[in-house]
């Protein structure tokens, strides 16, 4: 059962590196968070760790519903609805993503459970999006993917009390809200969210 969730998660993440339309990014992000929630439930069920149940519920509520809704509302007011040209071309980002996967599975082969490796892959894809795309909203989604990767990492490695888990989740959501409002400001000020218009501070 866990393998199927991980396969869905991996497929969605790899697809994400190639997307252009922002709507697709939002759906992919929602599916990712859902899969993470399911992994939490599955782990809670198998290891009897009841704090993971609450983590799963929180991820669903905070990430899947709240954040995706927020990003959708922000993207509605934008003029462009898709990435026109990439800094790292579509083909190259796929190649990088594959290389990342190979390296993570090679290095961490005997280290931890499979979903740890998927978490690292999530982080790599997130950084590709962050570095390779021009639109501000895509950078935001790239950043949130990295946060999802960290959540996966954290589930395995750390037995923390509930408050800390809630705190981390809350931080990520607040960050998403702030980035949303900022994108809204950028759109109003520059009336485009393409970060090329930014680079006017050479010195």
């Amino acid at each position, binding site marked *: 059962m866990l393998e199927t969730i991980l396969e869905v998660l991996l497929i969605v993440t790899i697809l994400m590196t190639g997307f252009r339309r922002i709507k697709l990014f939002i759906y992919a992000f929602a599916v990712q968070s859902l899969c993470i929630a399911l992994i939490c439930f599955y782990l809670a069920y198998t290891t009897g760790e009841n704090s993971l149940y609450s983590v799963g519920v929180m991820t669903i509520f905070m990430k899947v519903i709240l954040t995706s809704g927020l990003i959708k509302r922000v993207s509605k007011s934008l003029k462009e609805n898709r990435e026109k040209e990439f800094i790292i071309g579509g083909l190259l980002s796929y190649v990088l993503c594959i290389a990342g996967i190979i390296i993570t599975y090679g290095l961490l082969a005997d280290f931890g459970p499979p979903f740890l490796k998927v978490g690292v892959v999530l*982080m790599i894809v997130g950084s590709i999006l*962050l570095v390779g795309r021009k639109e*501000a909203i895509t*950078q935001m989604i790239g*950043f949130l993917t*990295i*946060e999802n990767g*960290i959540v996966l*990492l*954290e589930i395995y*490695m*750390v*037995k*923390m*009390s509930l408050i*800390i888990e809630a*705190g*981390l989740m809350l*931080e990520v959501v*607040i*960050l998403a809200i*702030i*980035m949303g409002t*900022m994108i809204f*400001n*950028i759109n109003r*000020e*520059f009336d485009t969210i393409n*970060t090329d218009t*930014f680079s*006017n*501070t050479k*010195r």
Partner: protein
Amino acid sequence: MIINMIFVLFIGMILISSLLKNIKVISIINIVGTMLIGGCFISVVDSVYKYEHISFLNNFLYIDSLNVIQIFIIMSISIISLLYAHKYIAHETKEHIITIGKAKTFYILFDLFVMSMIIVAISNNIVAMWMGLEATTISTAFLIGFSKNKLSIEAAWKYIIICSLGIGIGLIGIILFIYSAGVTEASEIANWTYLVSKAGILDKDIAKIAFVFIFIGIGTKAGIAPMHTWLPISHSEAPSPISALMSGALLNLALYVIVRFYIIIKLVSGLENLKYLFIIFGCISLIVSSFSILRQTNYKRLLAFSSIENIGIMTLGFGFGGYIAIFGSLLHGVIHAFGKALLFLVSGNILSVYKTKRMDVVQNLIKTMPINSVFLILGMLIIVGAPPFASFLSEYKIMIGGIHNDYLIYAIIYAVCLLLVFIGFLKSFIKMIFEQDNSKIYTKSDMDKENILPIVIAFVLVVLTSVFFGGYLTEILDRATLIIES
């Protein structure tokens, strides 16, 4: 009991500044509130001075002489910034540059910012430290984008993306760190004191990688070299009180967090030459900032680069190790905080009179704003490390520490970079103050006496630090060095 009082005061201030309408009243309440909090902390510091360290809320908060320095810096600079902000915000609202609502958000975010810094400073739980740092990023994001022009929005965006990415990497580091401490069931595994006592059993390889993640992650927040790129633009676009607070207190705080982890790592056997991480990154940030200072045309960006340079000096000091170098870098942290706050506030005054940040437009400052130009020169001397001030002593101690532990090449790079920064500062500030073209007539601006009180307080603090508060400061610095060094 005192700690709850502090948090009650914080939350009270935030509520009041969100409810009331009149800006002047809000700022006075904020100033009084921060002073009260400062008062509470003084009593806390006394008890730390008496018996080594104290902890509250069943070991969730922990204060020893290392974070007493950070508290001292945070509280004094926030009071100074609030005093400056009182007239600054009143002036802005009067001329309708910003609405009342924005002024209120300014104060709310300011209090959030100070509160999160205090949380980072005194918390014992490393994840709580991380959350505090994250809270500082969140609260300052909008403060940087406060003056709604193209540049400040871009600065805010770059700030939020780069810093949250850095802090994300820091989080990975912290998670690896806890993982390397073994899967014991102890509930307070994430407490710093617990980790220090358990340093022996840390898994060496994972702890190594964890520390690198923490160093690079939180290093972005501290403005260490390759990760410093957000700092010049965000410090030059933020309003002056905020950039004073950030540059003085926040960068210091991030470095303090790194040093907290470094103390644990030092106890793990076999990881001694992790200090090269500090030295190499310190040298990179010295080189990058000193060469960029030479080519700056905007004086606030120049101050931002000099903050990077001073952080580089401190990292180098911690890297060199040894009692003298660490004492020097801690002292340098304190003196740089006040000096940089003083310079940012003076540049705020200059900005409000000349309305431009370009250095070649600002001329003959000695004639138009004599009081500010005197403080500008004094600030320059403090930051550049001229003798009557303690920054000369701290830089000299770091140099001695470096050469004493056989890092001759790094010491030479350090000396060259100090020289380049000195040239950069001298060329730009002396030109700004004394240069004049005889065609224009320069009148003494009446705005000059405006907003001088906080600058005077900052300078008094610098002088007191140079006199070591009559030996009181040496005692605290001494104990802090022993914590790091032993």
